[in-house]
């Protein structure tokens, strides 16, 4: 399903949340190495589109493949290559940032050096690393979650409002990380309301309108 240079291929994909079609016959092709910005009103289906690509919601009808894996039959295989940062950060609040990173390092097989480098990259210095996540600010939690995403070494990055809660330097650092990931072949899909910032980062923009995808062209 799909050609080898495609990271995502949706054809008339339908996702139902209860009986409501959150995605209604959505079609999309994303090439490897692209940075795609998804815009759209609240409730239009941006998050559902990301969750479908992450294999977190089932496909009701149509076809969907990610990195060549059919999401209807090979969801687990696809997920091993996908990293997602949603509205929540996926952190353990009682653990320190360092312990969260070490846990994910153990789960995905990252070395201590990779963990240290990703922490350094996201500006997680020693004092912050030893702070319980529950006591961190929203921006510090976001940085920790992004450091985890870096050690996942995903081929497809799915980010839902990644700039939320970050200060200017944190936002710049995210943009740099995403550009770098794309430059080495990763594909990045970002859902954002901050069109100016995310638009500058993206190579292409699409809009989700009432569960359908509308092409807005190259940036």
């Amino acid at each position, binding site marked *: 399903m799909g050609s080898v240079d495609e990271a995502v291929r949706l054809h008339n994909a339908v996702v139902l949340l209860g009986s409501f079609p959150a995605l209604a016959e959505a079609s999309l092709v994303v090439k490897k190495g692209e940075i795609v910005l998804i815009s759209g009103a609240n409730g239009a289906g941006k998050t559902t589109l990301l969750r479908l690509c992450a294999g977190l919601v089932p496909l009701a009808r149509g076809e969907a493949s990610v990195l060549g894996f059919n999401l209807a039959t090979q969801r687990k295989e696809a997920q091993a290559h996908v990293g997602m940062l949603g509205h929540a950060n996926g952190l*353990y609040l009682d653990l320190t940032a360092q312990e969260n990173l070490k846990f*994910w390092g153990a789960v*995905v097989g990252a070395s201590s050096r990779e963990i240290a480098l990703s922490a350094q990259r996201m500006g997680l210095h020693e004092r912050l690393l030893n702070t319980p996540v529950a006591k961190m600010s929203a921006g510090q939690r976001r940085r920790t979650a992004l450091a985890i995403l870096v050690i996942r070494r995903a081929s497809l990055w799915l980010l839902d409002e990644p700039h939320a809660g970050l200060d200017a330097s944190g936002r710049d650092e995210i943009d740099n990380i995403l550009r770098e990931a794309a430059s080495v072949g990763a594909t990045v899909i970002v859902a954002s309301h901050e069109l100016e910032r995310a638009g500058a980062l993206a190579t292409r923009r699409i809009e989700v309108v009432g569960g359908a995808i509308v092409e807005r062209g190259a940036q």
Partner: protein
Amino acid sequence: MTQNSISTMSIARAIATKDLRIEWRSKVLVNQVLPFAGIVMVLFAFALDNDGILQRVAPGLVWLAVLFSSLIIVQRTFAIESADNALDAIKVAGVSSAGVFLGKSVALAVQLLLFECVLVMLSLVLYQVQLSWGGAVLLVTVSVLANVGIATMGALYGGLGAAAKGRETLLPLLLLPAVAPVLIAATRATESAFGVSGATLGEGWPWVALLAVFGALFGFGGTLAFGVLTEE
């Protein structure tokens, strides 16, 4: 190295270590669950204020207190996953569901074992039960095997209910009937260990064998079913 090449046992170890570290730091077991179980046992003693009856029903009371308290422990172990949506992060990472299940089960079993040690001590004092050396060996064996059954079922149904609406009320409805055979077998074996209701030590060991079968079945079935049941 990719996630696919990480062994199930390595993932189980990481999950169990993480859960126990969180418990050690938050002290929910010590500060909330143990006092709850202690109050339940004291209330049983007040309600059945007769030494003869108390001694006779002590094994059942201990295991009922364990089961009710295990609901809180199971809910807690999955609440830490849903607090910041870490369970979704684990799913997206394509982490082996068998590893998650085994890790959760081991962490639950360790917590339950420590918890039972305190409850059994309390029952010896509150309900004035005598325990011989042979009875102590039987009781330790029963506790370990019953824990395997409760922990594996707890991990399975806790994971199933974690993403469901009304999970606080759903878990008891799912878990308590499933672990009823463990309650029966553990209570009968503990009667033999305590030497109450005319039960002898020898009568307790067949129940231990039954607990071992339950533990193996629940562990094996849970390892296979966890991924499928928690997928959506």
